[in-house]
């Protein structure tokens, strides 16, 4: 199945590249775009894993809607190039180090596991596997609760977004306007050491 393998490597490299791009690139704009690349690559991998529906969802919802939202916010805030210079120091060193350590451990876990199936292409599956029909059926039967809760979660998230992002006239009147300069008066306490 050379075709599959090639596809895997292409997509895999794409995904990794996208991920690295997200982390490495200075400009948030480019990071977002890198993520888009990453997502698309992932979608391909999903396809390789017989998750057609998810692949589609990935492209449409994620790479589409969510990323657009991102871009709007970045545009709104003005994606300033952040100076990476200050990011040296212990964090700059240890951060990647520990992360890498975790990665190695995870790989060990996968490789060393006694599960035979890991080394296979996976169980035999019917053609309907990962197709919208199956997903839909599962969502509405076995995973009803998860589905409903997720929908409720979306509602809550919307409310939260509203709370956080809406301009509130009421408060400006009450004088508790945003901005550090107008914070409540601070005071220092004399404290005995």
């Amino acid at each position, binding site marked *: 199945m050379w075709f599959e393998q090639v596809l895997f490597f292409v997509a895999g490299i794409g995904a990794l590249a996208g991920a690295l791009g997200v982390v490495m690139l200075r400009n948030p704009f480019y990071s977002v775009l890198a993520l888009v690349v990453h997502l698309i690559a992932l979608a391909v991998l999903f396809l390789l894993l017989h998750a057609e529906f998810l692949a589609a969802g990935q492209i449409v919802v994620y790479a589409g809607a969510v990323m657009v939202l991102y871009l709007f916010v970045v545009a709104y805030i003005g994606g300033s190039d952040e100076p990476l210079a200050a990011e040296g120091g212990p964090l700059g060193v240890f951060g990647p180090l520990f992360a890498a350590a975790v990665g190695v451990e995870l790989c060990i876990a996968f490789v060393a*596991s*006694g599960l035979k199936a890991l080394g296979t292409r996976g169980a035999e599956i019917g053609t309907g596997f990962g197709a919208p029909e199956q997903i839909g059926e599962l969502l509405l039967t*076995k995973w009803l609760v998860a589905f409903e809760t997720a929908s409720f979660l979306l509602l*809550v998230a919307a409310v939260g977004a509203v709370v956080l992002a809406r301009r509130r006239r009421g408060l400006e009147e009450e004088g508790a306007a945003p901005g550090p300069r107008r914070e409540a008066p601070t*005071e220092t306490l004399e404290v005995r050491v």
Partner: protein
Amino acid sequence: MIDLLQLAASEAKAPVIDYRELSPLLALAGGSVVVLMVGLLRSAFARRVLVPALSALTLLVAIGLTIWIWESGDREPIIEGALAVDALSLGVSMLIYVAGLVTIVLSLRALAPEVAGHGEYHSLLLGSILGMVVLAMAENLITLFIGLELLSIPLYVLCATELHRRTSLEAGLKYLVIGSVGSATLLYGLAMVYGAAGSMQFGEIGAALGGGGLSATDPLLLTGIALSATGLAFKSSVAPFHQWTPDVYEGAPTPITTFMAVATKAAAFAVFLRLFDQAFGLAQLEWGPALAVLATLTIVIGNVGAIAQRSLKRMLAWSSVAQAGYLLAGVVVGSELGVRATAFYLAVYLLMNVAAFAVVVARERVSERGDDLAAFEDLGTAQPWLAWPMTIAMLSLAGFPATAGFIGKFYLIDASVEGAYTWLGIAIVVGSVVSLVYYLRVVAVMWMGRYEIEMPGPPRRIVRRVAGTSPEADARAQPEVAAIAILFAAATIVFGIWPDPLFEAARDVGSALPNLR
């Protein structure tokens, strides 16, 4: 192709939905929506009075329904085994509802709902509660994760609701970022567990371990356990994943802090118990020691961290870290007694902390020193009705006898000795010795405050007025807060002397999880 589709369609049959067991959740969901709608009304009455009233009503209904379900004791997982409606989940959800009620009462005069809008604030709160209940009931990995997120996401918002206050936003952001890292880790862990066990159902995972061909020492499984442990430890602020706790607790509006302190912990430990004692129960020999170490670490860190605090919210945050360590001991032993002890201590913990936080709320609203220790000087003579609850809460947290805290600790130590973790019991004891330093300091400040008391070193930053300072509120103008404090302090004493009711419930909860030692 076509016939395949028909085949699938013909197989598809609607799941049995047990509305009775589901009713509390439905009530919550509905309540949250209704509250949101009512909150959109213009009239101040609707927003300031009706909304809290309705939310409280929702919770009361939920409580009623929960009791109703509990009374008729059939305990089957419902809806294709997505939710477990048993004594554990019901008991914990009771605690959560109570915490929610308290939060609503404490929020009555708080600033946060004003800023966020009462409707939104309360519906978010109810949403979070719903998430907690789902989490407590979760019987499979997906429900667990979604419940966790439904718990967290509203809380991220609620922490940040006092938008004009920098620390509030900071708290929100920190909580969000660290929280997401935590849940991502959890997710990955769950994925690995799923991969190892081939099933999402706790029961089936346990069965797989029990002889379904999955060895308890499989690296994949254990790594999965490790990652999910990290995720849950983060939620229940167990060291070394605790660091968000003090900052978030301090930054968040105090009523929300109260809610997080008691409710989140309850839900997190509920799922901790369910996942580890039920799904991973047979791997206890593997994860027991690791969690025991974490518990000890947590006890130490939490207590020594609290010593240095002047801000009471921050101190209570650290102490809640320590308490998490105590609670974890009950999980570690993986025995029925452990489950009981944990459940018991969760209830006790609720009582003590609510009493303490209520007093903090009452003080910080009137004192221009916010929640700093100095704001409590001479409370004993000025406002004994606030000083006494605080004193009782502190003594109980420190584990003095004749308070519920003592019995709770007794129970936990009993459990850990029983489970051959005597040294963990000793750790609990040593921890409570250290904790005396800061608990007694509060008492001293309140009763002996006219005399110089050794305060912890100068805070690194200026002490600033903390959350919720609403000018119109003064001591007499907020009877409900004092009432909460007194009520819960009284309960602390009562259950310290006559704990049998709690033990009844705890025993019931302990029996919820099958096949435990």
